[in-house]
């Protein structure tokens, strides 16, 4: 088991680059109609999941909403398995049965990929309940967007989580927009973190464009939870560069606003920090980026060449014992 504080920052930067380049390829392949259904890109938000995952153990549970490609990659699912999933192939992380919004990877303790807004927050309560029931010191990381915090299931789950003192870190990825509706138009609060106060859950605000801040805050909270089971809430302020999904031109926000965030890019920031500290040269960065681009490109080739499940397999996944009814 690795110790979180030993996670190499250059490796984490490489992971953020992989997510970025993977998503760019996914966008291109979607436009080429190789990917069906909905496709929600994570570009701009990479420091949130990479920072959080860097701060916890490999056997901690993670669960998220439908903007989930980065979460699976950060957890260790291969780019090949992720791209193949988008292509609907049998080599995908759910054999092409879940699709973009439903990435799962049991081996890496990635509990999905959930597409009904807020509906996975009760599931996170259940994962954490199970850890407590078994007297394990695992932490559950539950990611959700700012749009989830007005959903009933979110509120019911927060009450249960607080009431039963469950070991969950509730990570609100506040990218300012629930689809096309800004937080100002959807939420009665001045700041999202105040939701936690209503349930007596300790909360904090984190700069989601700063990898180190996310990692350090999650590490601090996780250590406290492992000592004495309790929940915590982090409002992580971030920004998505692309629309809500591939069909969204994001005309509800200005170019100036987008530019402002692009200048604060999480990858550029971590790169600058590492360069300043003499831990990364320009050549090394270029090599990392080249490697990420190559992995993304190769994942497309892998996906294209992968087989699909035979149609008769649809009957195998309604029930665990594979029966039909």
């Amino acid at each position, binding site marked *: 088991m690795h110790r979180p504080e030993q996670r190499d920052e250059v490796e984490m930067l490489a992971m953020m680059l992989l997510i970025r380049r993977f998503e760019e390829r996914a966008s291109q392949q979607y436009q080429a109609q190789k990917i069906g259904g909905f496709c929600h890109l994570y570009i701009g938000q990479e420091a949130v999941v990479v920072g959080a995952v860097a701060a916890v153990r490999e056997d901690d*549970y993670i*669960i998220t909403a439908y903007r989930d490609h980065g979460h699976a990659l950060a957890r260790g699912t291969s780019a090949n398995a992720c791209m193949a999933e988008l292509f609907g192939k049998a080599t*995908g*992380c*759910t*054999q*092409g*049965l*879940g*699709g973009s919004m*439903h990435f*799962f*990877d*049991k081996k890496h303790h990635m*509990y*999905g*990929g*959930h597409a*009904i807004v807020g*509906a*996975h*927050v*009760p*599931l*996170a*309560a*259940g*994962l*954490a*309940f*199970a*850890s407590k*029931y078994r007297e394990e010191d695992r932490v559950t990381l539950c990611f959700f967007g700012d749009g989830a915090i007005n959903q*009933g*299931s979110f509120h*019911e*789950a927060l*009450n*249960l989580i607080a*009431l039963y003192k469950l070991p969950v870190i509730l990570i609100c990825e506040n990218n300012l927009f629930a689809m096309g509706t800004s937080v100002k138009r959807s939420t009665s609060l001045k700041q999202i973190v105040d939701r936690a106060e209503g349930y007596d859950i300790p909360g904090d605000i984190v700069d989601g464009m700063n990898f180190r801040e996310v990692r350090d805050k999650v590490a601090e909270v996780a250590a406290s939870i492992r000592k004495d089971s309790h929940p915590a809430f982090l409002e992580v302020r971030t920004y998505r560069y692309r629309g809500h999904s591939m069909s969204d031109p994001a005309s509800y926000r200005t170019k100036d606003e987008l530019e402002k965030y692009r200048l604060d890019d999480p990858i550029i920031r971590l790169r600058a920090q590492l360069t300043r500290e003499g831990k990364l040269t320009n050549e090394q960065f270029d090599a990392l980026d080249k490697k990420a681009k190559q992995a993304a490109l190769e994942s497309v080739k892998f996906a294209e060449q992968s087989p699909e499940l035979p149609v008769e397999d649809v009957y*195998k*996944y*309604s*029930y*665990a*014992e594979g*029966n039909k*009814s």
Partner: protein
Amino acid sequence: MREITYRQALNEALAEELARDPNVFLMGEEVAEYHGAYKVSQGLLERFGPKRIIDTPISENGFAGLGIGAAMTGLRPIIEFMTFSFSLVAFDQVVNNAPNMFMMSGGQFNIPITFRGPNGPAHQLGATHSHATECLFANAPGLKVCTPATPRDAKGLLKTAVRDDNPVLVLEAELLYSSKGMVEPPDEELLIPLGQAEVKREGSDVSIICYAQTVPLALTVAAQLEEEDISAEIVDLRSIKPLDEEAIYKSVSKTHRVVIVEQDRPFCGVGAEVCYRIQKNIFDELDAPVIRVSQEDVPMPYNEKLEKFVLPNADKLMSAVKKVCYA
């Protein structure tokens, strides 16, 4: 065999499964300190402690989802709904999360969970508290639905449900909690497979297909019919999904006449599915069109007389049987 109530039978099933498997826990509103709104969990808190018998706030969506999340890690939660009418606020969890997880995770996460509680119209509970939810849940692939009508079936089906690796709904009959029946003693393991109907009474002239609260109704009517020289066979489905088609076809091939008496509503109800399968698969065995007796297609009124009019009853069933028998 000894005679116990339906309520006691469920209580025994819970206690036996909790004792057998430490991964099993019971969660729901009033299940612990209050011993269950219908006293099904009587004594369980004292025996198994608050870690495994867990009271919840009134948050069906929340605790149903909590159960599903816990089941993703291999625990085997039993989630009690105080009534399945209240499961409707957890509908998203029960139909969108529990049964879809196995498919959408590519077979990585099955959900071994049991949802149980009273279901179906009772006495004058009004429109919001009288739902028969079996047709709603049976519509979702990935769920299994059973509807025990006797203490023996209640115990055997609940125990099987807890051991199943999939989400199973045990829809208990609200009006039958105090009914009595013969059940094997506790030292004899009683497991009744899901998807297995039972002929509750043999007959030769007409098959009455029923389940849950319509089983005692059908048995009463069968006794009356006997006085008029009509021999009715009573087929208790016991499970709605999987559906025991063979048992249905076997009975219908013997009697050639069918009445389906169901506690739910007529439009897209359980009887519609049973009827479709009979005409599709054994059309030549039928000597008369199949008749369904169900609720009227209206929200449930409170008034006692009007409620009786809406529900299936002995008169309606009797006249349906006579119609299919051309008697």
